[in-house]
């Protein structure tokens, strides 16, 4: 029965929630129940999903809305948990529109995760883009509006590249199913699809939208956005392109690139945004390496990252919400005023750095070791370097300049209970996964032979982190944040678009206006001359003969036309003259 398959798909529940929410605007308790309830329902549903469901015929294609295997399940698991945490965190938000956007966004992400063919993927992919942009716009600042516009244009372009790839792939093999692509069998179409995926995964050089848009999103919006767009892209890359060497190299470059910017940026959420680029780099690199251990590592890292990145954004968001500030040079010494937020954020920081007993330790190390095992020492070192940078920028620098350091005198109360609860749940999960890694390892797509807790790994990690910390304290004065921005590759399209619009206004439009007035400038004069030359015929009569039984209409038209100048008569006369010339030519030839 189609209705039961519709109901078992978690996206349906999010869509239903989105439709229901506007009607619940006045009923606060019910609204909150819906906000928390739907992710919980989705979380339970995913455990009962059949392997394949939701086959629909559309435009002559067989769409597969539900294709479930181990890879799918682990992502569904973490996406629904994150949706739950995010909704708790955002319970206080009064604007229904934000909740609707978040629901549509999560629903889209689940839809992409569950899909089995490219057309369904594209539908939900666009749904994600067009709903998440509202999460940026709801911040309502002028910069947010502009950043959102750039975001949607970039994502539309990425979506169109993806669509081009889908079309070409369909033309090549007449099959739209979304399956793994062999590394030696990839065509131009497949690369286009990969680029479309890479844009959402924020792979440089098409990553600049992320640090541009995420810091401008609303407080709760950013929490959702950091989790879903990029990790959905990681999922589709893991599904379609494991083992592509380009991804391994780009991924390793990404890790260092993102962390490099994170070290020098000033705005807390921008640091975190660049950091997403870095951490996703680990995942992309793992997928690129392609071995079972590497892909396992990538997936585990995605899982852990969603939780602790969400936690970090929640922390920075709480600061923003309570103080109105997010720039590091304006903050400091907040531990006295927002102690709980500080504790949770610091937990997030140590988790992302990969301290033992946290989720970062059990996931990041797997990928790095996988690089080592498959004889990619350079990649391994790059990722280790990025780990240094991670701890430096997000593990130490960020908390130091917000919570400790010189007191900035900023007044703030501690965050509301729901925000703290959301953070607490995430922090708990960070430790839970760190202490009981098997809970996550059992969900991974391939069997896991990796044991993170052995003496060598502990030693390696503690040394790395300890001495990075030392480096920070040596250079702490140099790292003082400055209220400046750093240019990135978006410079090209931001300046380029301005130039293009200038060209359009200054050259194209005046030309168009001239062409439109041609009838007056040239046409009228020419026709006047022509008409005068032929004015010794009785054009009225000939006009009527040609129009035949439309005579009555033309007469009526003539009366209307005589409201205007008589020049019309001359146009018609000239045109009929032309007719007769042609007729004569045809007859004679």
């Amino acid at each position: 029965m189609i209705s039961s398959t519709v109901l078992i798909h978690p996206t349906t529940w999010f869509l239903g929630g989105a439709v229901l929410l506007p009607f619940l605007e006045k009923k606060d308790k019910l609204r909150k129940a819906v906000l928390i309830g739907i992710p919980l329902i989705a979380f339970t549903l995913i455990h009962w999903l059949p392997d394949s469901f939701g086959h629909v015929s559309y435009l002559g294609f067989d769409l597969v809305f539900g294709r479930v295997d181990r890879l799918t399940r682990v992502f569904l698991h973490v996406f629904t948990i994150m949706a739950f945490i995010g909704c708790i965190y955002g319970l206080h938000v009064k604007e229904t529109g934000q909740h609707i956007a978040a629901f549509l966004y999560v629903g889209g992400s689940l839809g992409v995760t569950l899909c089995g063919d490219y057309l369904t993927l594209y539908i939900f992919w666009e749904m994600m883009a067009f709903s998440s942009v509202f999460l940026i716009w709801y911040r309502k600042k002028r910069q947010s509006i502009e950043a959102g516009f750039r975001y949607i244009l970039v994502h539309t372009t990425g979506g169109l590249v993806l669509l081009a790839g889908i079309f070409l792939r369909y033309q090549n093999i007449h099959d739209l199913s979304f399956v793994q692509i062999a590394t030696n069998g990839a065509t131009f179409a497949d690369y286009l699809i990969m680029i479309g995926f890479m844009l959402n995964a924020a792979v440089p050089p098409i990553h600049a939208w992320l640090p541009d848009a995420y810091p401008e999103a609303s407080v709760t919006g950013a929490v959702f956005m950091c989790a879903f767009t990029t990790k959905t892209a990681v999922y589709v890359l893991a599904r379609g392109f494991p083992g592509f060497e380009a991804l391994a190299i780009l991924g390793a470059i990404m890790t260092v690139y993102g962390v490099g910017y994170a070290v020098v940026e000033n705005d807390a959420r921008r640091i975190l945004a660049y950091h997403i680029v870095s951490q996703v780099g680990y995942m992309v690199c793992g997928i690129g390496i392609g071995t079972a251990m590497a892909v396992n590592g990538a997936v585990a890292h995605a899982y852990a990252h969603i939780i602790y990145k969400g936690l970090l954004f929640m922390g920075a968001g709480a600061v923003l919400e309570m103080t109105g500030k997010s720039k590091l040079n304006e903050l400091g010494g907040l531990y006295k005023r927002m102690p709980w937020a500080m504790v949770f954020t610091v937990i997030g920081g140590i988790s992302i750095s990969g301290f033992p007993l946290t989720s970062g330790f059990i996931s990041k190390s797997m990928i790095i070791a996988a690089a080592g095992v498959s004889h990619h020492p350079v990649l391994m070192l790059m990722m280790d370097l990025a780990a240094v940078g991670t701890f430096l920028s997000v593990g130490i620098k960020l908390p130091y300049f917000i919570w400790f350091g010189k007191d900035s005198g900023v007044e703030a109360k501690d965050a509301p209970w729901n925000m703290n609860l959301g953070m607490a749940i995430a922090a708990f999960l960070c430790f839970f996964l760190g202490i009981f890694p098997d809970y996550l390892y059992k969900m991974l797509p391939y069997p896991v032979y990796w044991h993170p807790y052995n003496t060598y790994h502990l030693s390696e990690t503690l040394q790395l982190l300890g001495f990075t910390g030392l480096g920070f304290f040596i250079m702490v004065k140099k790292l003082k944040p400055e209220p400046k921005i750093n240019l990135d590759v978006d410079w090209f399209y931001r300046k380029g678009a301005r130039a293009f619009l200038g060209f359009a206004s200054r050259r194209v439009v005046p030309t168009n206006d001239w062409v439109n007035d041609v009838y007056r400038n040239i046409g009228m004069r020419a026709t006047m001359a022509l008409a005068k030359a032929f004015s010794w015929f009785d054009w009225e009569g000939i006009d009527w003969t040609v129009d035949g039984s439309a005579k009555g209409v033309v007469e009526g038209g003539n009366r209307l036309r005589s409201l205007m100048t008589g020049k019309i008569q001359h146009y018609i006369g000239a045109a009929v003259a032309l007719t007769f010339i042609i007729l004569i030519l045809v007859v004679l030839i």
Partner: protein
Amino acid sequence: MVRLLNYLNEHSVMLKRIFFVFLILTVVFDLYVKRHEMHFFGDAIIGFWSLFGIIGCLGMIIVCKGLSHVWLMKKEDYYDK
């Protein structure tokens, strides 16, 4: 908890000493650790990762800050013109 942190803040010298002791302990610990699989030359060297940590950290700060100051850093309203 705030009191605990205030206490730690005031006794930062003590914290620093504990930190240095910790660092030395980690390197010493490395001496006794069994190496299982050598994928990489650095795995065999004792204290390799400490060096990597400190040099990597300092190097990254210098390079990134350097690039930023020399080339990429602009005023916040750069794009608004």
